[in-house]
C-alpha cells in the first residue's frame, strides 16, 4: 500500500513536470546589457535612466504606466480616481490603499509609513533627490492605518498621479533608509547599493559602473514569478557592442538604447539571433530659435530679453528656416525605421497630437525664398540676404553626436539655398547639457542663434512639459541661467493657456488646451521640431514576455519575462 502511494506520487510528479515552467526561478539566468553602466541602485540620488531601470528590478511604485500609456495598479488593488472615491471631489487629496499582505524582500510587511517616508526622504532639502519635482504641491501625507496613505495637495491637482506613479518615484523601505535622510543620503553606500524592495529581484552583488547581480526575490507577491532565478545586469561599452552582443553573438538577452544608424541595426538583426524592438514615446529632436540678441558686445545683457534678436525676431525669417528643412529625408538618414518626421513639439500620446501643422512635412525652398523676398530680405552679391545692414548669418550649435552632425550639414545646405549663412558648431555633450553657469557653451545659456537637441517628458501627462515655455522659465543671469524656455518665448496668451490647464480636470478639455499650446509654439516658429524619435532596444529571440514600454521603465514587467522554449 505504502509503496503504491509512493509510486503514484512519483508518477504524479512526472505528469506535473511539464507544467512546472511557471515556477519561480525555473528559467535560469537572464543577461541584460546597458552600455551606460548604472552607478548606483538608488535612483533618487542619480536621476539617470540607467539607474532608474536597474532599480526597477528591485523598487516599485504604487502604480505604473503600461506599454499603452494607461496607469495600472502595481502595489495597490485599484488606481484611485474621482469616480471610485479615491480622489476627493475638490481634487486636493488622493487615497492609496496598499494590496494586503505585501512584503519587502527581507520578509517585513510593507506599510503606509514606508510611502510617507519615501516622500520625506525625497523632499529633504539637503538630500539632493533627483525626483523631488514629482512631489511638488504635496502638503502632507497621512497614514490612518497600515495600508492607507492619504496624500494632501496644497492646491487642486487635476492630474494627481505625480507622486508614486511611474518609474521615477518608487517606494523605499523606511527601516533601511531611516538614517540616510538629508546630507547623510550620500554616505549610505551599503544602503544605496543594496536596497530592500518589493520587486521581483534582490541585489546579490553591486559593482558601480560595472555589473549588478540579482537573484529572485523569495518574498515576491506572486509565488510563481519571476521566471528567472538570477539576473546579470552588465554595464559599459558602447551601443554598437551592446547591440552586437544580443543580435549577433547572442551572449546577452536584452540590450537597451541602441542609438545606431539604421543600416547597422538592420545588418545586425539579419544574423537572426535577436529582434530590434522600438516604441515611440515623447522624444523630439528639435531646433530651438533664439529670440534674443547674443552679440558679445552686450556684455552682461547678452542673451536676455532686453535685446531682441536682430533678425530671428522676424517671424518670416523663422518660418522660412522651417520651410527649407526636408524633415522626411533627415529622419530617413538619421533614424530610419526608428524615427518619424514631425511638425509637433508634443508628438504623443495620441490624444494630444495636433494635425494643424502638418504642412511642414513637405520641404518648400522656393516658398521660403519668396517669403524672404516679400519680407524685404534681399540677396547680396555673396548670395546672403540682408536688410538694413543686418545679414542673415546664423550660428547653429548642438552636442557632438554623429547623427546630429549629419543633420547640421544637411540643414546648412538648405539654409544656404535660401540665402542664409550658417556657421556650425558642436560641443561635447557633458558641457552642452551641463549646467555650469560659468560656461558659455551650455544649451541653457544658448549663446548662439539656433541650437538642436532632443527633449521629452516622463509619463503621459504633458502639463509640466508644456509649461516649459512660460516667461518665468526663461534662463537669465537672475536665475543663474536655469530654466527650460530656451527660445526665451514670452506670450500672455500662452501663459493663460498654461494657467487654464493647471486647473482643468477633464481629459478632453486638457487635450484641447495642450494642442492649442503646441500650435501656438509651432505657428510662431520658435521651435522647429524635426524627428519624433523612438526608444530602441534589442531582445534575444529566446526571451519571452518583453513588452517595450516608453512611458515607464523598460524593465517595468521584468517579473513576466521568460525563456522561450
Amino acid at each position, binding site marked *: 500500500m505504502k509503496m503504491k502511494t509512493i509510486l503514484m506520487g512519483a508518477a504524479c510528479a512526472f505528469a506535473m513536470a511539464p507544467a512546472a515552467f511557471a515556477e519561480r526561478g525555473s528559467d535560469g539566468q537572464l543577461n541584460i546589457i546597458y552600455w551606460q553602466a548604472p552607478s*548606483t541602485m538608488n535612483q533618487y540620488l542619480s536621476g539617470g535612466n540607467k539607474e532608474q531601470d536597474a532599480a526597477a528590478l528591485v523598487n516599485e511604485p504604487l502604480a505604473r504606466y503600461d506599454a499603452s500609456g494607461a496607469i495600472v495598479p502595481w502595489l495597490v488593488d485599484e488606481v484611485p480616481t474621482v469616480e471610485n472615491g479615491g480622489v476627493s471631489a475638490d481634487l486636493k487629496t488622493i487615497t492609496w490603499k496598499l494590496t494586503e499582505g505585501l512584503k519587502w524582500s527581507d520578509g517585513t510587511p510593507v506599510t503606509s509609513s514606508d510611502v510617507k517616508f519615501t516622500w520625506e526622504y525625497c523632499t529633504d532639502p539637503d538630500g539632493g533627490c533627483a525626483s523631488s519635482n514629482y512631489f511638488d504641491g504635496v502638503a502632507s501625507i497621512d497614514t490612518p492605518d497600515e495600508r492607507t496613505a492619504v496624500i494632501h495637495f496644497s492646491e487642486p491637482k487635476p492630474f494627481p498621479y505625480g507622486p508614486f506613479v511611474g518609474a521615477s518615484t518608487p517606494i523605499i523601505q523606511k527601516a533601511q533608509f531611516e538614517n540616510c535622510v538629508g546630507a547623510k543620503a550620500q554616505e549610505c553606500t551599503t544602503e544605496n547599493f543594496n536596497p530592500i524592495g518589493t520587486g521581483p529581484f534582490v541585489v546579490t552583488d553591486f559593482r558601480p*559602473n560595472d*555589473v549588478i547581480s540579482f537573484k529572485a526575490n523569495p518574498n515576491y507577491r506572486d509565488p510563481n514569478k519571476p521566471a528567472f532565478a538570477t539576473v546579470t545586469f552588465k554595464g*559599459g561599452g558602447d551601443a554598437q557592442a551592446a547591440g552586437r552582443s544580443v543580435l549577433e553573438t547572442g551572449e546577452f538577452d536584452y540590450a537597451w538604447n541602441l542609438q545606431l544608424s539604421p543600416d547597422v541595426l538592420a545588418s545586425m538583426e539579419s544574423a537572426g539571433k535577436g529582434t530590434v524592438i522600438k516604441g515611440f514615446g515623447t522624444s523630439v529632436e528639435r531646433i530651438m530659435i533664439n529670440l534674443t540678441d547674443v552679440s558679445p558686445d552686450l556684455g552682461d545683457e547678452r542673451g536676455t530679453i532686453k535685446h531682441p534678436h536682430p533678425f530671428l525676431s522676424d517671424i518670416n525669417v523663422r518660418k522660412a528656416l522651417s520651410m527649407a528643412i526636408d524633415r522626411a529625408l533627415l529622419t530617413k538618414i538619421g533614424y530610419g525605421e526608428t524615427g518619424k518626421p514631425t511638425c509637433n513639439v508634443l508628438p504623443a500620446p495620441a490624444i494630444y497630437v495636433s494635425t494643424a501643422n502638418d504642412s511642414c512635412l513637405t520641404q518648400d525652398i522656393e516658398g521660403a525664398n519668396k517669403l524672404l523676398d516679400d519680407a524685404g530680405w534681399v540677396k547680396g552679391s555673396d548670395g546672403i540676404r540682408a536688410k538694413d545692414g543686418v545679414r542673415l548669418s546664423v550660428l547653429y550649435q548642438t552636442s557632438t553626436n554623429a547623427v546630429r552632425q549629419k543633420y547640421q550639414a544637411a540643414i546648412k545646405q538648405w539654409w544656404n539655398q535660401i540665402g542664409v549663412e550658417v556657421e556650425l558648431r558642436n560641443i561635447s555633450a557633458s558641457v552642452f547639457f551641463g549646467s555650469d553657469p560659468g560656461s558659455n557653451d551650455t544649451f541653457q545659456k544658448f549663446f548662439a542663434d539656433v541650437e538642436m537637441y532632443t527633449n521629452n517628458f516622463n509619463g503621459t501627462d504633458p502639463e509640466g512639459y508644456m509649461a516649459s515655455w512660460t516667461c518665468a522659465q526663461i534662463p537669465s543671469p537672475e536665475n543663474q541661467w536655469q530654466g527650460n524656455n530656451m527660445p526665451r518665448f514670452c506670450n500672455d496668451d500662452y501663459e493663460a493657456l498654461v494657467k487654464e490647464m493647471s486647473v482643468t480636470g477633464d481629459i478632453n478639455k486638457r487635450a484641447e488646451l495642450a494642442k492649442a499650446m503646441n500650435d501656438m509654439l509651432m505657428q510662431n516658429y520658435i521651435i522647429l521640431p524635426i524627428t519624433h524619435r523612438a526608444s530602441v532596444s534589442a531582445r534575444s529571440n529566446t526571451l519571452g514576455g518583453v513588452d517595450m514600454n516608453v512611458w515607464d521603465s523598460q524593465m517595468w514587467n521584468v517579473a513576466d519575462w521568460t525563456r522561450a522554449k
Partner: protein
Amino acid sequence: MLTFTIRRLLLAIPTLLFIALVIFALLKLAPGDPTANVPLTVPPEVKAKMREALGLGQPNYIQFYKWLVQFFVIEPQIMIDHFFGTHFADGKLRVISWQWRGPVMDVVVQRLPQTLWVVGLSYVVGAMIAIPIGVISAYKQYSWFDQIGTFISMIGFSVPTFFTGLLLIVIFSVYLGWFPSIYDTTLVVNDWTSFVKQMKQIAMPVFVLALYNAAQISRFMRASMLDNLNQDYVRTARAKGLSEKVVVLVHVLRNSMIPVVTVIALGVPGVFGGAIITEQVFKVNGIGDMLIKAIEANDLPTVQTLTFIFAFLIVIFNLIADILYGILDPRIRYD
C-alpha cells in the same frame, strides 16, 4: 646607493604634491558638470540641489585640502584597519565618487584584478615574445626572419588597438563564436572549466595588447643587440674560442638587456593605468575603463584619485628603473 635612493624618495614628495595640485587645478578649470548626464526631464532647480549635495558649493582650496586629507591620511588608515583589524578610520569621510556616492578606493580595488589579468598578462606575454625575436632579428640581421619580424612589429606599432580589437571580435566572436565579445567580471576562477572560460575571455584583449607591447620591446631589443654585437669585447670573446651560444646569450644578451630593462620598468605604471582603449573595446571593467567613465561623468574625485595614483606609480617606477640600472651595470654608481 642608499643615500641616492633616500634623496630621490624625499625629492618625490614635493614633486607629487605639485602634481596633485596641477591635476586639481586642471580639473577645476575644465568646463563640465557632474549632473550633465542627468536626463533633461529633471528640472534645473532639482539639478542645482543635486550639485549642492555633492559639495560643489565649497571654495576650491577647501575642496583640495579635503581631498589631500582623505587621500593621504584617511585612505591609508582604512588600509591599516583592513589588514590589522584596527579602528583608526571609523566614521571618517573617505574619497567619495560623485557617480556612485561610494568610496573611490573600494572600486579601484574591485577593478584592479581585471586590469592586472588582462594588461599585466599581455605585458608579460609581450615581453616574453619580444626578447627572443629581438635577439634573433639582430643576430641574423636582414635575414627573412628579421624582415618578417620587422614587418609584424610595424603592424603592431602602427595599427591602432581599437581596429585590431574590433577585427578580432568580428572574426572570433561573430563569425566563429569561439570567444565572448564581452568580458564577464563576475566569473570566479575556482576549477578547470572556469579557468578555461577565463582564458577564453582574456584571449583576445591579451593578444591585441601583447602584439602592441611585443612590437615595441622587440624593436628596442634588436637595436640594443646590434649595438653590442659589433663591440670589441664580443670579438675578444670569440677570439678566446668561446662557443657562439655563450657569446650571444651570456655576453651580448646581458649587456643588451640594460636599456631594455629600463624600458620595461618604465612601462609598468602603464599596466596599472590599464589600456583605456582596449578595455573599452572588450568591455573589460578595469582601471582604464573606470578612468574614462569618470572623465565623461565629470566625476572629479575619481579622476583626481586615479590620475594621482598613476603619477605616483610613474615616479616610483622611474626610481626603480634608475636603481636597476645601477645593479645591472656595475660601472654606474650614483654616489
